[in-house]
């Protein structure tokens, strides 16, 4: 089973669970979808209105930025894979 790591600030939407085990084989997108189907309050923080990954969120497969992978979020995952949800951290003075 592949694992998704939930970032700390979003754990209140997963009942304080830091990880999520993906049951079915499939792609990164499908894994994220099974997560957000289980924790619906998490959904708006990860997925936008068009059903895509929000622009404020990055996905990492191990140490690789998913957007840099050939098949991006359509990449198929193995049992040992770890997907991390990485929120954008930025700001400024105005």
């Amino acid at each position: 089973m592949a694992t998704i790591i939930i970032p700390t600030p979003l754990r209140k939407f997963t009942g304080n669970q830091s990880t999520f085990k993906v049951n079915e084989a499939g792609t990164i997108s499908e894994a994220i979808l099974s997560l957000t189907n289980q924790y619906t309050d998490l959904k708006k923080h990860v997925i936008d209105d068009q059903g895509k990954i929000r622009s404020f969120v990055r996905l990492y497969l191990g140490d690789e930025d998913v957007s840099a992978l050939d098949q991006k979020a359509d990449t198929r995952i193995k049992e040992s894979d770890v997907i991390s949800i990485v929120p954008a951290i930025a700001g400024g003075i105005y």
Partner: protein
Amino acid sequence: MSTHIKTSTLQLSASGLEVVRKDAVKAYPDECCGFLFGTETEGRKITLAVPVTNHKDGDKRRRFEIHPQDYLRAERLAAEIGLDLLGVYHSHPEHPALPSLTDLEMALPYFSYVIVSVKSGKVVDERSWKLNESLGLFEEEFIMQPIHLS
């Protein structure tokens, strides 16, 4: 709708505060940024601050950005050392320690956002802010004065 106002407090260790202030001075006139770690068993207590590179492409005097790899490392560090990742700090060179619209737009729930005001290269103020998600606003967290041991 409840009109109850919650006043939360934040304890910041003397050593953590020292790291944040030094980073703000070192980065000046650019913005600095870093992560805050600690515990939440008896209120929120920041015991460790770790600076990271301001990765903003462009004007670092007015903007900061943390690289996703640095974020990943911070989550891993928290798990390794058994602390919670509780927030982010950054500085406002020549501006007050008040969150900007950009800060609000990018704010995540749960995190404490410590902002340090630096004027003419000196730290003049630090304040902490936490997103109230239902109101879409920042609420200030009262920073308790660190206790100096020894």
